[in-house]
């Protein structure tokens, strides 16, 4: 490395939180640096201050709320703190650029993507329109977008999520900045797309010698892409070092806990209950959405086609697939939150698919569902207790008994029974997910559907909630339908896995067999895309 000056060097950075927060400083005494041609991953759970650090560098902190109080941030040796907004604006885009998590909201929906890339050039250069257009096509080529002449005039909604993220990267790299800050750039993407984007960032960075500050919560991504790793917790750096050092020999207990909590891709050996009674079976289940009609031409969109599933009691069946694969549609059909178009849903041999809402009611309690978003799954205006007793009281249980059951369930999911009088906003995400599990169990169900139930949680919390789900499965002999996009999670909790792609089940089998020898091309593509697959996680247990 010829250039010895780091692209970015942060020294003793402290950013103060507004009064009344849960801690005094958002970021405290943070120091690390990014060398040219190096990818530094800042990794931590939500609230660790990793995003605040990135936004401080870009000068994008919300004014009057977060203020850097001490420390230095040097961009190629130049101090960034204390610059006027105007000076920072000139640096942004030209010498440092940022890409964000959500490519849909980060792009302007009513502006052609070509113009959005060009905007950076308009602001920072005095080039002619022809020069700018040539440059735009050039960077679009560089991020491997196909058919750039056509794409340059498209609007964001006409592109796929991966293509949108490529546009973001193209805009960020248009002026060859020295520093690229990537704030969870692949979190909202499917695994196969994520793998492509990670490869692209790696490739561009090697070719151009850009320093990359990569913010992520995902140790799989870290293993995939990082040269060096900075681990943050509650606003402090707890450990930093090369990727190999931190991943293979973590010194700090927190890092060890984080890495230990990452589920392994090697399936755990489980004894599947072969002979238990079948709790749920679907036969040729189908869901077709009909759009338009009346005036427009009717369009039919098959969301799920010919889905055949079978779950025994005490067994966990995983449905794995990317967004739009129809896995949630299947779950919601089985819970009868949406009407299946065709096929049968047999619960203990009785077909519930054709039943009317009234006739269905007695069957409702048998199937319960836990949703992904812990912040929207509980009515914010009702106490946790009211949410927990609602279902049992619908089926004729007295209030006192229902409350007693709710108290027992709260204890069982690891929460204080006296917290029943509290409101959902007084709980953390993981605690809310426990409450949702308790709410489902309050119905005394036979089938529990977990629809991405741990996807929104931090990895350490995720591990606890997974353990809880497994515990209640055994205790109540539940049939669990586990919907997930995360192969690691699926490997750890599922007895059998069904892989869905474009509304169909393309492969189904025992977890161990499926992971050892995937048959279908799509399954193999999924496995190849899993970030950090070459690194064996789940070995450093928390100490």
């Amino acid at each position: 490395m010829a250039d010895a000056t780091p692209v970015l060097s942060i020294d003793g950075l402290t950013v103060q939180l507004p009064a009344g927060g849960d801690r005094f400083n958002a970021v405290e005494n943070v120091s690390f640096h990014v060398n040219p041609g190096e990818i530094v991953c800042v990794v931590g759970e939500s609230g660790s201050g990793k995003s605040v650090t990135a936004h401080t560098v870009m000068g994008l902190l919300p004014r009057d709320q977060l203020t850097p109080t001490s420390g230095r941030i040097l961009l190629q040796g130049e101090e960034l703190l204390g610059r006027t907004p105007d000076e920072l604006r000139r640096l942004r885009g030209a010498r440092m650029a940022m890409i964000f998590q959500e490519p849909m909201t980060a792009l302007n929906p009513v502006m052609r993507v070509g113009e959005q890339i060009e905007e950076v050039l308009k602001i920072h250069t005095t080039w002619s329109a022809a020069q700018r257009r040539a440059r735009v096509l050039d960077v679009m080529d560089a991020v491997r977008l196909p058919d750039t002449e056509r794409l340059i005039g498209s609007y964001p909604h006409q592109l796929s999520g991966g293509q949108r993220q490529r546009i973001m990267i193209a805009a960020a790299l248009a002026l060859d900045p020295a520093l690229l800050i990537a704030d969870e750039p692949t979190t909202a993407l499917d695994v196969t797309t994520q793998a492509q984007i990670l490869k692209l960032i790696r490739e561009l960075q090697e070719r151009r010698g850009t320093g990359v500050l990569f913010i992520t919560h995902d140790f799989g991504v870290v293993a995939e892409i990082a040269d060096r790793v900075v681990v943050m917790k509650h606003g402090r750096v707890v450990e930093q070092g090369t990727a190999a050092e931190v991943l293979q020999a973590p010194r700090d207990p927190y890092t060890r806990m984080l890495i230990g909590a990452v589920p392994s891709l090697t399936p755990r050996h489980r004894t599947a209950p072969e002979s238990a009674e079948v709790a749920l079976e679907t036969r040729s289940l189908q869901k077709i959405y009909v759009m338009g009609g009346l005036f427009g031409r009717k369009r039919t969109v098959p969301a799920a086609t010919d889905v055949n599933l079978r779950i025994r009691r005490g067994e966990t069946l995983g449905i794995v697939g990317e967004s739009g694969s129809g896995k949630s549609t299947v779950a919601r059909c089985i819970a009868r939150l949406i009407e299946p178009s065709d096929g049968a849903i047999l619960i203990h041999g009785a077909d519930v698919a054709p039943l009317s809402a009234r006739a269905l009611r007695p069957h409702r309690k048998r199937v319960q569902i836990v949703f992904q978003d812990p912040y929207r799954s509980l009515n914010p205006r009702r106490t946790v207790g009211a949410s927990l007793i609602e279902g049992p009281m619908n089926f004729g249980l007295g209030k006192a008994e229902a409350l007693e059951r709710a108290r027992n369930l709260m204890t069982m999911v690891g929460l204080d029974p006296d917290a029943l009088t509290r409101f959902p906003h007084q709980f953390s995400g993981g605690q809310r997910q426990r409450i949702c599990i308790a709410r489902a169990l309050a119905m005394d169900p036979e089938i529990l559907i977990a629809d991405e139930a741990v996807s929104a949680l931090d990895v350490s919390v995720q591990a606890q909630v997974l353990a809880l789900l497994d515990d209640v499965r055994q205790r109540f002999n539940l049939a669990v339908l586990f919907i997930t996009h995360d192969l690691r999670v699926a490997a750890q909790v599922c007895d059998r896995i069904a892989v869905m792609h474009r509304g169909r089940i393309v492969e189904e089998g025992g977890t161990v067999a499926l992971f050892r020898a995937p048959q279908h091309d799509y399954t193999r593509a999924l496995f190849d895309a899993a970030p950090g697959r070459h690194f064996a996680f789940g070995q450093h247990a928390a100490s």
Partner: protein
Amino acid sequence: MTEVIERPTATDIGTVTVKGRRGGFVWRYPLVFLGATIVGLMAIAAFGAPWLGTVDPLALDPLRRLRPPDAVNWLGTDQFGRDIWSRVVYGARVSLIVGIAAAVLSIGIGLAIGLIAGYVRLLDSVAMRIMDGIMAIPGILLAIALVSLSGASTLTVVVAITIPEIPRVVRLVRAIVLSVREEPYVEAAIAAGTRLPLILLRHVLPNCIPPLIVQATYVCASAMLTEAILSFLGAGTPPEIPSWGNMMAEGRAFFPIAPRIVLFPGIALALTILAINVLGDGLRDRLDPRLAKRM
């Protein structure tokens, strides 16, 4: 492995600050306070009219016509010798009754239709097309037509004002219902076997209340204004009931020599409507902090 319940963080501003700091309401919500005070005074005037130094607002006194304000007639008298102060105070009754009745009726009916339209797909398009139809009829025209068909009375005026307001409430409620019904907690309630009426009552309705309170203040203000316009046009409150609108209508011929006949009810009307709108704005900011920040 019992977890410690987290204490609320700074983001949960809603309930925490209200419970935490009781004092200083006036200073934190000056608009709500100001609006509520004026509306409160109007309400006192309406209910306590007989005890506020008033005489019979209909009593004619031909000897004291068009008198300027003095110790007997605080705001002077009109062309028939009626006491303007008494008529303004009693006039508040009509405005308040019409305003509140129109608000309650349009919110009540609109809420019911909106909930059904938002939840029952079959009725949705039918109900919304009917609402579109009502919205296409000019409100004043409908009112004049109704009054000429069924005669002038406070009830007719209320009905005439309520009907054109209903579609706005329906649209508001329907929009909220459509977004709330997709919330996972509503789906969880469905999966728990909660019947539709209970779901609407427990999970959907509470989300409609804050915007509806704000909407109610606007309906109320606009109803008072419409009532005054209708009375002014002679198609509203019958002349034997003192209302601000017909005071202004009767007094407009005498404006050059006794402007107070028109001015005082006009001021009362303007002040009330301003106060109600200010109260509505303040409540909206209080009930929906996201909107307040955007202003």
